[in-house]
Protein backbone atom coordinates (compact mmCIF):
# COMPACT_ATOMS: atom_id res chain seq x y z
CA UNK A 1 0.00 0.00 0.00
CA UNK A 2 1.45 3.39 -1.01
CA UNK A 3 -0.51 5.75 1.17
CA UNK A 4 -2.77 4.79 4.02
CA UNK A 5 -4.94 6.97 6.20
CA UNK A 6 -6.19 5.45 9.43
CA UNK A 7 -8.91 7.02 11.55
CA UNK A 8 -8.10 10.61 10.67
CA UNK A 9 -9.91 13.05 12.92
CA UNK A 10 -9.17 16.74 12.76
CA UNK A 11 -10.72 19.98 13.91
CA UNK A 12 -10.04 23.65 14.41
CA UNK A 13 -10.66 24.60 18.06
CA UNK A 14 -14.33 23.70 18.51
CA UNK A 15 -15.33 22.63 15.02
CA UNK A 16 -14.66 19.09 13.82
CA UNK A 17 -13.61 19.11 10.19
CA UNK A 18 -12.76 15.46 9.62
CA UNK A 19 -14.36 12.59 11.43
CA UNK A 20 -12.70 9.15 11.53
CA UNK A 21 -11.60 9.05 7.89
CA UNK A 22 -9.80 5.92 6.66
CA UNK A 23 -8.76 4.81 3.18
CA UNK A 24 -5.75 3.53 1.30
CA UNK A 25 -4.24 4.28 -2.09
CA UNK A 26 -2.18 2.02 -4.35
CA UNK A 27 0.70 3.05 -6.56
CA UNK A 28 -0.35 4.35 -9.98
CA UNK A 29 -3.92 5.15 -9.04
CA UNK A 30 -5.71 8.36 -9.91
CA UNK A 31 -7.93 9.13 -6.97
CA UNK A 32 -10.56 11.85 -7.13
CA UNK A 33 -11.84 13.40 -3.96
CA UNK A 34 -15.40 14.63 -4.48
CA UNK A 35 -17.54 16.63 -2.12
CA UNK A 36 -19.29 19.95 -1.63
CA UNK A 37 -17.47 23.09 -0.49
CA UNK A 38 -16.36 22.92 3.12
CA UNK A 39 -16.59 19.13 3.43
CA UNK A 40 -12.94 18.88 4.51
CA UNK A 41 -11.25 17.99 1.21
CA UNK A 42 -8.47 20.58 1.48
CA UNK A 43 -7.85 19.78 5.15
CA UNK A 44 -7.58 16.08 4.29
CA UNK A 45 -5.08 16.81 1.51
CA UNK A 46 -2.99 18.92 3.89
CA UNK A 47 -2.94 16.06 6.37
CA UNK A 48 -1.77 13.70 3.62
CA UNK A 49 1.03 16.19 2.89
CA UNK A 50 2.06 16.25 6.53
CA UNK A 51 1.19 19.95 6.89
CA UNK A 52 -1.45 19.23 9.57
CA UNK A 53 -1.30 16.41 12.07
CA UNK A 54 -4.36 14.29 12.76
CA UNK A 55 -5.71 14.13 16.29
CA UNK A 56 -6.77 11.30 18.62
CA UNK A 57 -4.31 8.70 17.44
CA UNK A 58 -5.16 8.81 13.75
CA UNK A 59 -2.21 8.48 11.41
CA UNK A 60 -1.11 8.66 7.81
CA UNK A 61 1.39 6.11 6.56
CA UNK A 62 3.46 6.45 3.43
CA UNK A 63 5.00 3.19 2.24
CA UNK A 64 4.36 1.82 5.70
CA UNK A 65 6.07 4.61 7.66
CA UNK A 66 4.17 7.11 9.69
CA UNK A 67 4.31 10.40 7.86
CA UNK A 68 5.23 12.58 10.86
CA UNK A 69 8.32 10.43 11.46
CA UNK A 70 9.64 11.08 7.97
CA UNK A 71 11.96 14.07 7.60
CA UNK A 72 10.41 16.99 5.72
CA UNK A 73 13.02 16.86 2.97
CA UNK A 74 12.76 13.10 2.52
CA UNK A 75 9.00 13.34 2.31
CA UNK A 76 9.27 16.13 -0.26
CA UNK A 77 11.24 13.79 -2.52
CA UNK A 78 8.27 11.39 -2.50
CA UNK A 79 5.12 13.48 -2.21
CA UNK A 80 4.62 16.75 -4.06
CA UNK A 81 1.90 19.33 -3.71
CA UNK A 82 0.33 21.01 -6.73
CA UNK A 83 -1.67 23.91 -5.33
CA UNK A 84 -4.90 25.35 -6.61
CA UNK A 85 -4.87 27.91 -9.43
CA UNK A 86 -1.84 29.79 -8.34
CA UNK A 87 -1.83 33.28 -7.00
CA UNK A 88 1.46 34.40 -8.47
CA UNK A 89 3.44 36.87 -6.40
CA UNK A 90 6.56 37.54 -8.44
CA UNK A 91 7.21 37.24 -12.15
CA UNK A 92 9.83 34.52 -11.89
CA UNK A 93 10.86 32.75 -15.09
CA UNK A 94 8.97 29.49 -15.62
CA UNK A 95 12.28 27.62 -15.49
CA UNK A 96 13.10 29.17 -12.11
CA UNK A 97 9.74 28.11 -10.69
CA UNK A 98 10.33 24.55 -11.88
CA UNK A 99 13.87 24.64 -10.45
CA UNK A 100 12.45 25.28 -6.98
CA UNK A 101 11.50 21.60 -7.05
CA UNK A 102 15.18 20.79 -6.50
CA UNK A 103 15.14 22.33 -3.00
CA UNK A 104 14.58 19.02 -1.14
CA UNK A 105 17.77 17.70 -2.75
CA UNK A 106 19.90 20.58 -1.49
CA UNK A 107 21.92 21.17 1.66
CA UNK A 108 21.56 24.46 3.52
CA UNK A 109 23.55 26.77 1.25
CA UNK A 110 23.65 24.72 -1.95
CA UNK A 111 22.89 26.26 -5.31
CA UNK A 112 21.28 24.81 -8.40
CA UNK A 113 23.72 23.17 -10.81
CA UNK A 114 23.48 22.14 -14.46
CA UNK A 115 22.08 18.74 -13.46
CA UNK A 116 19.16 20.49 -11.75
CA UNK A 117 18.56 22.65 -14.81
CA UNK A 118 18.61 19.54 -17.01
CA UNK A 119 16.01 17.82 -14.83
CA UNK A 120 13.79 20.90 -14.84
CA UNK A 121 13.99 21.26 -18.61
CA UNK A 122 13.31 17.56 -19.07
CA UNK A 123 10.14 17.84 -17.02
CA UNK A 124 9.02 20.86 -19.04
CA UNK A 125 9.75 18.99 -22.25
CA UNK A 126 7.75 15.99 -21.13
CA UNK A 127 4.71 18.20 -20.60
CA UNK A 128 5.48 19.91 -23.94
CA UNK A 129 5.88 23.36 -22.43
CA UNK A 130 9.65 23.70 -22.83
CA UNK A 131 9.08 26.69 -25.13
CA UNK A 132 7.78 28.60 -22.10
CA UNK A 133 10.94 28.23 -19.99
CA UNK A 134 12.11 31.84 -20.34
CA UNK A 135 8.64 33.38 -20.03
CA UNK A 136 7.55 35.10 -16.80
CA UNK A 137 5.41 32.74 -14.77
CA UNK A 138 2.78 35.44 -14.24
CA UNK A 139 2.24 35.94 -17.96
CA UNK A 140 1.47 32.38 -19.07
CA UNK A 141 -2.09 31.03 -19.05
CA UNK A 142 -3.65 29.29 -16.07
CA UNK A 143 -3.43 25.92 -17.77
CA UNK A 144 0.22 26.41 -18.59
CA UNK A 145 0.85 27.50 -15.03
CA UNK A 146 -0.74 24.31 -13.74
CA UNK A 147 1.45 22.27 -16.09
CA UNK A 148 4.52 24.18 -14.89
CA UNK A 149 3.63 23.27 -11.31
CA UNK A 150 3.32 19.62 -12.36
CA UNK A 151 6.75 19.93 -13.95
CA UNK A 152 8.00 21.31 -10.64
CA UNK A 153 6.51 18.33 -8.79
CA UNK A 154 8.26 15.97 -11.23
CA UNK A 155 11.54 17.86 -10.79
CA UNK A 156 11.12 17.31 -7.07
CA UNK A 157 11.60 13.62 -7.80
CA UNK A 158 8.22 12.81 -6.28
CA UNK A 159 5.95 10.09 -7.64
CA UNK A 160 2.88 10.89 -5.60
CA UNK A 161 1.20 14.16 -6.47
CA UNK A 162 -1.46 15.80 -4.37
CA UNK A 163 -3.60 18.32 -6.25
CA UNK A 164 -6.02 20.77 -4.74
CA UNK A 165 -8.70 21.32 -7.39
CA UNK A 166 -6.28 21.38 -10.32
CA UNK A 167 -8.93 22.20 -12.93
CA UNK A 168 -10.25 25.23 -11.07
CA UNK A 169 -10.12 28.38 -13.17
CA UNK A 170 -8.92 26.60 -16.30
CA UNK A 171 -10.75 26.89 -19.59
CA UNK A 172 -12.38 23.80 -21.10
CA UNK A 173 -9.48 22.95 -23.41
CA UNK A 174 -6.92 23.26 -20.65
CA UNK A 175 -9.00 21.13 -18.29
CA UNK A 176 -8.97 18.33 -20.87
CA UNK A 177 -5.28 18.81 -21.55
CA UNK A 178 -4.52 18.56 -17.86
CA UNK A 179 -6.50 15.32 -17.50
CA UNK A 180 -4.74 13.87 -20.55
CA UNK A 181 -1.38 14.57 -18.97
CA UNK A 182 -2.50 12.96 -15.71
CA UNK A 183 -3.49 9.78 -17.56
CA UNK A 184 -0.16 9.69 -19.42
CA UNK A 185 1.82 10.13 -16.23
CA UNK A 186 -0.20 7.59 -14.28
CA UNK A 187 0.72 4.98 -16.88
CA UNK A 188 4.35 5.58 -15.92
CA UNK A 189 3.62 4.84 -12.30
CA UNK A 190 2.84 8.31 -10.96
CA UNK A 191 0.08 8.39 -8.36
CA UNK A 192 -2.43 11.23 -8.22
CA UNK A 193 -4.74 12.32 -5.48
CA UNK A 194 -6.84 15.28 -6.48
CA UNK A 195 -9.83 17.05 -5.14
CA UNK A 196 -12.30 18.17 -7.76
CA UNK A 197 -15.70 19.76 -8.21
CA UNK A 198 -16.40 17.94 -11.49
CA UNK A 199 -17.82 14.41 -11.24
CA UNK A 200 -17.33 14.19 -15.01
CA UNK A 201 -13.59 14.57 -14.58
CA UNK A 202 -13.66 11.70 -12.16
CA UNK A 203 -15.59 9.58 -14.68
CA UNK A 204 -13.12 10.38 -17.45
CA UNK A 205 -9.88 9.67 -15.62
CA UNK A 206 -10.39 8.31 -12.18
CA UNK A 207 -9.75 4.76 -11.25
CA UNK A 208 -11.18 5.60 -7.95
CA UNK A 209 -13.44 8.09 -6.27
CA UNK A 210 -13.65 8.98 -2.62
CA UNK A 211 -16.77 10.95 -1.75
CA UNK A 212 -16.81 13.15 1.30
CA UNK A 213 -19.63 14.84 3.08
CA UNK A 214 -19.39 16.82 6.31
CA UNK A 215 -16.00 15.40 7.19
CA UNK A 216 -16.83 11.74 6.60
CA UNK A 217 -16.41 9.38 3.66
CA UNK A 218 -19.75 8.29 2.22
CA UNK A 219 -18.46 6.30 -0.75
CA UNK A 220 -15.12 4.87 -1.80
CA UNK A 221 -14.71 2.77 -4.92
CA UNK A 222 -14.36 2.78 -8.70
CA UNK A 223 -15.85 5.77 -10.46
CA UNK A 224 -18.53 3.59 -12.09
CA UNK A 225 -19.63 2.28 -8.72
CA UNK A 226 -19.60 5.55 -6.86
CA UNK A 227 -20.81 8.14 -9.32
CA UNK A 228 -24.51 7.44 -9.25
CA UNK A 229 -27.56 9.68 -9.24
CA UNK A 230 -28.13 8.73 -5.65
CA UNK A 231 -24.67 9.63 -4.37
CA UNK A 232 -24.55 12.85 -6.37
CA UNK A 233 -27.88 13.88 -4.88
CA UNK A 234 -26.55 13.10 -1.45
CA UNK A 235 -23.41 15.20 -2.04
CA UNK A 236 -24.73 18.17 -3.91
CA UNK A 237 -28.50 18.12 -3.37
CA UNK A 238 -29.28 18.23 -7.11
CA UNK A 239 -30.87 15.59 -9.29
CA UNK A 240 -28.32 14.35 -11.80
CA UNK A 241 -28.60 11.44 -14.22
CA UNK A 242 -25.56 9.39 -15.08
CA UNK A 243 -25.72 8.37 -18.73
CA UNK A 244 -23.83 5.77 -20.72
CA UNK A 245 -22.83 7.29 -24.04
CA UNK A 246 -21.07 4.30 -25.45
CA UNK A 247 -19.43 1.28 -23.96
CA UNK A 248 -18.11 2.31 -20.54
CA UNK A 249 -18.05 6.02 -21.18
CA UNK A 250 -20.32 7.85 -18.82
CA UNK A 251 -21.31 11.47 -18.33
CA UNK A 252 -23.37 13.33 -15.78
CA UNK A 253 -26.44 15.21 -16.99
CA UNK A 254 -28.40 17.54 -14.68
CA UNK A 255 -31.98 16.25 -14.84
CA UNK A 256 -33.73 19.61 -14.88
CA UNK A 257 -31.52 20.98 -17.63
CA UNK A 258 -31.57 18.14 -20.11
CA UNK A 259 -32.59 14.65 -19.12
CA UNK A 260 -30.90 11.87 -21.01
CA UNK A 261 -32.96 9.25 -22.83
CA UNK A 262 -34.24 6.36 -20.76
CA UNK A 263 -32.29 3.64 -22.57
CA UNK A 264 -28.98 5.40 -21.88
CA UNK A 265 -29.71 6.21 -18.26
CA UNK A 266 -27.96 4.05 -15.72
CA UNK A 267 -30.28 3.02 -12.95
CA UNK A 268 -28.46 1.41 -10.09
Amino acid at each position, binding site marked *: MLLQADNITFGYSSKTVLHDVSFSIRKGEIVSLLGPNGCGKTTLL*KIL*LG*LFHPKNGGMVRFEGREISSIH*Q*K*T*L*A*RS*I*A*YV*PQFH*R*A*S*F*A*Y*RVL*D*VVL*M*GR*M*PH*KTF*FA*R*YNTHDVDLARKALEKLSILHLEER*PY*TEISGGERQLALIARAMT*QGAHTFIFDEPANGLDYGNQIRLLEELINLSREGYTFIKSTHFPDHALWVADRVIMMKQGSIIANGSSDETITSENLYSLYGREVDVCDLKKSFRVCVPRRLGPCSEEKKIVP
Partner: protein
Amino acid sequence: MKNSIWISSLLFLLCFTVLVSLALGKYPISLSEICSYVTSSCGFGSMDSQRAAILHNILVDIRLPRILAAVLIGAALSVSGVAFQSMFINPLVSPSLLGVLAGASFGAALGMIVSNNWVVIQSSSFLFGLLAVLLSVGVARLYRGDRLLMLLLGGIISGALFTSLLSVVKYLADPYNQLPAIVYWLMGGLTMVDGKTILYVSLPIGIGVLVIVLLSPYLNVLSMGDDEAKTMGVNVSLIRMTLIFFATLISALTVALGGMIGWVGLIIPHVARMLVGPDNRLLLPVGALLGALYLVFVDDLSRLIFNVEIPLGIVTSLVGIPFFALVLKNARKGWG
Protein backbone atom coordinates in the same frame (compact mmCIF):
# COMPACT_ATOMS: atom_id res chain seq x y z
CA MET B 1 25.71 34.59 -18.65
CA LYS B 2 23.45 37.54 -18.19
CA ASN B 3 23.82 37.33 -14.41
CA SER B 4 27.58 37.66 -14.26
CA ILE B 5 27.53 40.56 -16.72
CA TRP B 6 25.20 42.49 -14.44
CA ILE B 7 27.24 41.80 -11.34
CA SER B 8 30.66 42.45 -12.85
CA SER B 9 29.63 45.66 -14.60
CA LEU B 10 28.02 47.01 -11.42
CA LEU B 11 31.11 46.02 -9.46
CA PHE B 12 33.29 47.86 -11.93
CA LEU B 13 31.03 50.90 -11.76
CA LEU B 14 31.18 50.83 -7.97
CA CYS B 15 35.00 50.68 -7.91
CA PHE B 16 35.13 53.52 -10.39
CA THR B 17 32.72 55.64 -8.33
CA VAL B 18 34.66 54.96 -5.15
CA LEU B 19 37.89 56.05 -6.84
CA VAL B 20 36.32 59.22 -8.21
CA SER B 21 34.74 59.97 -4.84
CA LEU B 22 38.19 59.75 -3.22
CA ALA B 23 39.31 62.53 -5.56
CA LEU B 24 36.26 64.71 -4.94
CA GLY B 25 36.01 67.11 -2.05
CA LYS B 26 36.74 70.56 -0.71
CA TYR B 27 40.43 69.82 -1.14
CA PRO B 28 40.69 68.52 -4.69
CA ILE B 29 43.14 65.74 -5.36
CA SER B 30 43.66 64.47 -8.89
CA LEU B 31 43.23 60.79 -9.77
CA SER B 32 46.86 60.61 -10.91
CA GLU B 33 47.98 61.89 -7.53
CA ILE B 34 45.91 59.17 -5.82
CA CYS B 35 47.62 56.61 -8.04
CA SER B 36 51.09 57.85 -7.24
CA TYR B 37 50.21 57.97 -3.53
CA VAL B 38 49.03 54.35 -3.65
CA THR B 39 52.13 53.15 -5.52
CA SER B 40 54.51 55.05 -3.26
CA SER B 41 52.86 53.75 -0.10
CA CYS B 42 53.19 50.24 -1.51
CA GLY B 43 56.94 50.87 -1.74
CA PHE B 44 57.19 51.63 -5.44
CA GLY B 45 58.31 55.07 -6.49
CA SER B 46 58.77 57.96 -4.12
CA MET B 47 56.83 60.99 -3.03
CA ASP B 48 57.51 64.13 -1.10
CA SER B 49 56.96 63.04 2.51
CA GLN B 50 55.08 66.16 3.54
CA ARG B 51 52.74 65.85 0.59
CA ALA B 52 52.32 62.13 1.35
CA ALA B 53 51.33 62.95 4.93
CA ILE B 54 48.67 65.37 3.72
CA LEU B 55 47.34 62.87 1.23
CA HIS B 56 47.33 60.14 3.87
CA ASN B 57 45.34 62.34 6.19
CA ILE B 58 42.77 63.31 3.58
CA LEU B 59 42.43 60.01 1.74
CA VAL B 60 42.90 57.36 4.41
CA ASP B 61 41.74 59.15 7.54
CA ILE B 62 38.91 61.28 6.20
CA ARG B 63 37.55 60.21 2.83
CA LEU B 64 38.08 56.45 2.72
CA PRO B 65 36.18 55.57 5.96
CA ARG B 66 33.30 57.70 4.80
CA ILE B 67 33.13 56.11 1.39
CA LEU B 68 33.44 52.62 2.85
CA ALA B 69 30.67 53.47 5.31
CA ALA B 70 28.48 54.57 2.41
CA VAL B 71 29.21 51.30 0.60
CA LEU B 72 28.38 49.22 3.67
CA ILE B 73 25.23 51.14 4.60
CA GLY B 74 23.90 51.21 1.04
CA ALA B 75 24.50 47.49 0.53
CA ALA B 76 23.07 46.55 3.93
CA LEU B 77 19.92 48.64 3.65
CA SER B 78 19.04 47.48 0.18
CA VAL B 79 19.79 43.81 0.89
CA SER B 80 17.60 43.84 3.96
CA GLY B 81 14.95 45.74 1.98
CA VAL B 82 14.93 43.09 -0.75
CA ALA B 83 14.86 40.30 1.83
CA PHE B 84 11.93 41.82 3.74
CA GLN B 85 9.95 42.59 0.58
CA SER B 86 10.36 39.08 -0.80
CA MET B 87 9.72 37.44 2.54
CA PHE B 88 6.56 39.37 3.30
CA ILE B 89 5.47 39.45 -0.36
CA ASN B 90 4.73 43.13 0.08
CA PRO B 91 6.14 46.00 -2.00
CA LEU B 92 5.74 48.57 0.78
CA VAL B 93 7.95 46.80 3.26
CA SER B 94 11.36 48.23 4.13
CA PRO B 95 14.02 47.55 6.78
CA SER B 96 12.10 49.75 9.19
CA LEU B 97 9.34 47.12 9.12
CA LEU B 98 9.97 45.35 12.39
CA GLY B 99 10.68 48.53 14.31
CA VAL B 100 14.42 48.14 13.96
CA LEU B 101 15.15 51.71 12.84
CA ALA B 102 12.91 53.21 15.51
CA GLY B 103 14.50 51.05 18.20
CA ALA B 104 18.01 51.86 17.03
CA SER B 105 17.24 55.59 16.94
CA PHE B 106 15.91 55.49 20.46
CA GLY B 107 18.98 53.56 21.56
CA ALA B 108 21.31 56.11 20.00
CA ALA B 109 19.47 59.06 21.53
CA LEU B 110 19.53 57.40 24.92
CA GLY B 111 23.24 56.74 24.50
CA MET B 112 23.85 60.42 23.71
CA ILE B 113 22.13 61.46 26.92
CA VAL B 114 23.94 59.09 29.25
CA SER B 115 27.36 59.22 27.69
CA ASN B 116 29.64 61.08 25.34
CA ASN B 117 31.43 57.93 24.37
CA TRP B 118 30.81 57.07 20.73
CA VAL B 119 31.15 53.33 21.36
CA VAL B 120 28.41 53.47 24.00
CA ILE B 121 26.12 55.33 21.61
CA GLN B 122 26.66 52.82 18.83
CA SER B 123 26.24 49.74 20.98
CA SER B 124 23.13 51.15 22.58
CA SER B 125 21.72 51.92 19.15
CA PHE B 126 22.39 48.38 17.97
CA LEU B 127 21.03 46.75 21.13
CA PHE B 128 17.76 48.66 21.07
CA GLY B 129 17.39 47.92 17.36
CA LEU B 130 17.57 44.22 18.15
CA LEU B 131 15.30 44.66 21.16
CA ALA B 132 12.65 46.33 18.97
CA VAL B 133 12.66 43.34 16.63
CA LEU B 134 12.48 40.87 19.49
CA LEU B 135 9.52 42.84 20.79
CA SER B 136 7.68 42.70 17.47
CA VAL B 137 8.36 38.97 17.13
CA GLY B 138 7.21 38.49 20.72
CA VAL B 139 4.00 40.44 20.18
CA ALA B 140 3.37 38.41 17.02
CA ARG B 141 3.72 35.18 19.00
CA LEU B 142 1.17 36.24 21.58
CA TYR B 143 -1.68 36.00 19.16
CA ARG B 144 -2.91 33.29 16.86
CA GLY B 145 -3.67 34.04 13.26
CA ASP B 146 -1.82 34.69 10.05
CA ARG B 147 1.83 34.66 11.10
CA LEU B 148 3.03 37.22 8.56
CA LEU B 149 0.23 39.64 9.32
CA MET B 150 0.85 39.30 13.06
CA LEU B 151 4.54 39.99 12.53
CA LEU B 152 3.72 43.15 10.57
CA LEU B 153 1.36 44.29 13.32
CA GLY B 154 4.02 43.51 15.92
CA GLY B 155 6.44 45.67 13.93
CA ILE B 156 4.00 48.56 13.85
CA ILE B 157 3.42 48.31 17.60
CA SER B 158 7.10 48.07 18.41
CA GLY B 159 7.99 50.89 16.00
CA ALA B 160 5.34 53.16 17.54
CA LEU B 161 6.54 52.36 21.06
CA PHE B 162 10.15 53.23 20.33
CA THR B 163 9.18 56.35 18.40
CA SER B 164 7.32 57.63 21.46
CA LEU B 165 10.19 56.65 23.73
CA LEU B 166 12.46 58.65 21.44
CA SER B 167 10.22 61.68 21.97
CA VAL B 168 10.54 61.21 25.72
CA VAL B 169 14.32 61.18 25.44
CA LYS B 170 14.30 64.24 23.20
CA TYR B 171 12.08 66.06 25.69
CA LEU B 172 14.38 65.19 28.57
CA ALA B 173 17.55 66.06 26.67
CA ASP B 174 19.51 69.21 27.39
CA PRO B 175 18.18 71.58 24.71
CA TYR B 176 21.51 73.32 24.07
CA ASN B 177 23.89 70.45 23.49
CA GLN B 178 22.20 67.08 23.54
CA LEU B 179 19.00 67.81 21.64
CA PRO B 180 20.70 69.29 18.55
CA ALA B 181 23.15 66.38 18.55
CA ILE B 182 20.29 63.89 18.63
CA VAL B 183 18.34 65.70 15.92
CA TYR B 184 21.32 66.03 13.60
CA TRP B 185 22.31 62.45 14.14
CA LEU B 186 18.79 61.23 13.36
CA MET B 187 18.97 63.08 10.06
CA GLY B 188 21.67 60.63 9.14
CA GLY B 189 25.21 61.44 8.20
CA LEU B 190 28.63 59.96 7.78
CA THR B 191 30.68 62.79 9.30
CA MET B 192 31.32 60.91 12.53
CA VAL B 193 32.52 57.73 10.87
CA ASP B 194 36.10 56.73 11.61
CA GLY B 195 38.33 53.94 10.39
CA LYS B 196 38.14 51.90 13.58
CA THR B 197 34.34 51.78 13.59
CA ILE B 198 34.32 50.68 9.98
CA LEU B 199 36.73 47.93 10.84
CA TYR B 200 34.57 46.30 13.48
CA VAL B 201 31.20 46.96 11.82
CA SER B 202 32.20 45.74 8.36
CA LEU B 203 32.60 42.13 9.50
CA PRO B 204 29.05 41.59 10.85
CA ILE B 205 27.53 43.56 7.96
CA GLY B 206 29.59 41.55 5.48
CA ILE B 207 28.54 38.27 7.08
CA GLY B 208 24.90 39.33 7.24
CA VAL B 209 24.81 40.35 3.59
CA LEU B 210 26.59 37.14 2.59
CA VAL B 211 24.22 34.87 4.52
CA ILE B 212 21.16 36.54 3.02
CA VAL B 213 22.61 36.31 -0.49
CA LEU B 214 23.42 32.63 0.06
CA LEU B 215 19.87 31.97 1.24
CA SER B 216 18.39 33.62 -1.85
CA PRO B 217 17.03 30.38 -3.39
CA TYR B 218 14.99 29.95 -0.20
CA LEU B 219 13.63 33.48 -0.50
CA ASN B 220 12.26 32.53 -3.91
CA VAL B 221 10.56 29.46 -2.47
CA LEU B 222 9.22 31.35 0.57
CA SER B 223 7.50 33.86 -1.70
CA MET B 224 5.36 31.02 -3.08
CA GLY B 225 3.66 30.73 0.31
CA ASP B 226 4.34 28.73 3.46
CA ASP B 227 2.49 25.51 2.61
CA GLU B 228 4.13 25.17 -0.76
CA ALA B 229 7.55 25.91 0.68
CA LYS B 230 7.04 23.23 3.35
CA THR B 231 6.02 20.61 0.80
CA MET B 232 9.27 21.41 -1.03
CA GLY B 233 11.16 20.36 2.08
CA VAL B 234 11.96 23.86 3.35
CA ASN B 235 12.06 24.42 7.10
CA VAL B 236 10.02 27.61 6.80
CA SER B 237 10.26 28.97 10.33
CA LEU B 238 14.01 28.31 10.65
CA ILE B 239 14.80 29.96 7.33
CA ARG B 240 12.49 32.89 7.99
CA MET B 241 13.92 33.54 11.44
CA THR B 242 17.48 33.33 10.10
CA LEU B 243 16.65 35.82 7.38
CA ILE B 244 14.87 38.18 9.77
CA PHE B 245 17.78 37.98 12.23
CA PHE B 246 20.43 38.89 9.68
CA ALA B 247 18.32 41.50 7.90
CA THR B 248 17.71 43.13 11.28
CA LEU B 249 21.34 42.86 12.31
CA ILE B 250 22.62 44.64 9.24
CA SER B 251 20.00 47.38 9.26
CA ALA B 252 20.52 48.07 12.99
CA LEU B 253 24.24 48.35 12.32
CA THR B 254 23.64 50.96 9.63
CA VAL B 255 21.87 53.09 12.22
CA ALA B 256 24.79 52.62 14.58
CA LEU B 257 27.11 53.72 11.79
CA GLY B 258 25.33 56.65 10.21
CA GLY B 259 22.00 57.38 11.86
CA MET B 260 18.63 57.23 10.13
CA ILE B 261 19.15 56.97 6.40
CA GLY B 262 15.70 56.62 4.96
CA TRP B 263 14.27 55.43 1.68
CA VAL B 264 17.31 53.49 0.45
CA GLY B 265 15.87 50.21 1.70
CA LEU B 266 12.60 50.86 -0.08
CA ILE B 267 13.67 52.46 -3.36
CA ILE B 268 16.76 50.48 -4.32
CA PRO B 269 15.01 47.07 -4.12
CA HIS B 270 12.34 48.36 -6.51
CA VAL B 271 14.86 49.80 -8.93
CA ALA B 272 16.92 46.61 -8.83
CA ARG B 273 13.81 44.50 -9.42
CA MET B 274 12.95 46.63 -12.44
CA LEU B 275 16.43 46.13 -13.83
CA VAL B 276 16.97 42.41 -13.34
CA GLY B 277 13.58 40.93 -12.42
CA PRO B 278 12.38 39.31 -9.21
CA ASP B 279 14.70 36.29 -8.97
CA ASN B 280 16.37 36.82 -5.59
CA ARG B 281 19.46 34.90 -6.64
CA LEU B 282 20.37 37.80 -8.94
CA LEU B 283 18.31 40.51 -7.29
CA LEU B 284 20.13 40.40 -3.95
CA PRO B 285 23.70 40.89 -5.22
CA VAL B 286 22.54 43.48 -7.75
CA GLY B 287 20.58 45.25 -5.00
CA ALA B 288 23.63 45.28 -2.74
CA LEU B 289 25.87 46.80 -5.43
CA LEU B 290 23.23 49.27 -6.54
CA GLY B 291 22.57 50.38 -2.96
CA ALA B 292 26.28 50.89 -2.34
CA LEU B 293 26.62 52.82 -5.59
CA TYR B 294 23.62 55.00 -4.79
CA LEU B 295 24.78 55.88 -1.31
CA VAL B 296 28.34 56.72 -2.38
CA PHE B 297 26.88 58.96 -5.07
CA VAL B 298 24.43 60.65 -2.73
CA ASP B 299 27.13 61.13 -0.12
CA ASP B 300 29.23 62.91 -2.74
CA LEU B 301 26.28 65.17 -3.41
CA SER B 302 25.79 65.89 0.28
CA ARG B 303 29.46 66.82 0.59
CA LEU B 304 29.70 68.94 -2.54
CA ILE B 305 26.46 70.66 -3.50
CA PHE B 306 26.57 73.43 -0.95
CA ASN B 307 29.29 75.07 1.08
CA VAL B 308 27.86 73.45 4.17
CA GLU B 309 27.42 69.71 4.25
CA ILE B 310 23.78 68.51 4.21
CA PRO B 311 22.93 65.44 6.31
CA LEU B 312 22.94 62.34 4.12
CA GLY B 313 19.51 61.13 5.24
CA ILE B 314 17.93 64.33 3.94
CA VAL B 315 19.62 63.98 0.55
CA THR B 316 18.67 60.30 0.16
CA SER B 317 15.05 61.30 0.70
CA LEU B 318 15.18 64.40 -1.50
CA VAL B 319 16.85 62.54 -4.36
CA GLY B 320 15.02 59.29 -3.77
CA ILE B 321 11.42 60.40 -3.44
CA PRO B 322 11.01 62.23 -6.78
CA PHE B 323 12.93 59.47 -8.50
CA PHE B 324 10.70 56.87 -6.91
CA ALA B 325 7.58 58.81 -7.89
CA LEU B 326 8.83 58.84 -11.48
CA VAL B 327 9.53 55.13 -11.65
CA LEU B 328 6.50 54.07 -9.61
CA LYS B 329 4.57 53.47 -12.80
CA ASN B 330 6.93 50.65 -13.65
CA ALA B 331 7.78 49.70 -10.11
CA ARG B 332 5.09 47.07 -9.92
CA LYS B 333 6.65 45.10 -12.78
CA GLY B 334 8.01 41.97 -11.22
CA TRP B 335 5.15 42.05 -8.72
CA GLY B 336 2.86 40.09 -11.03
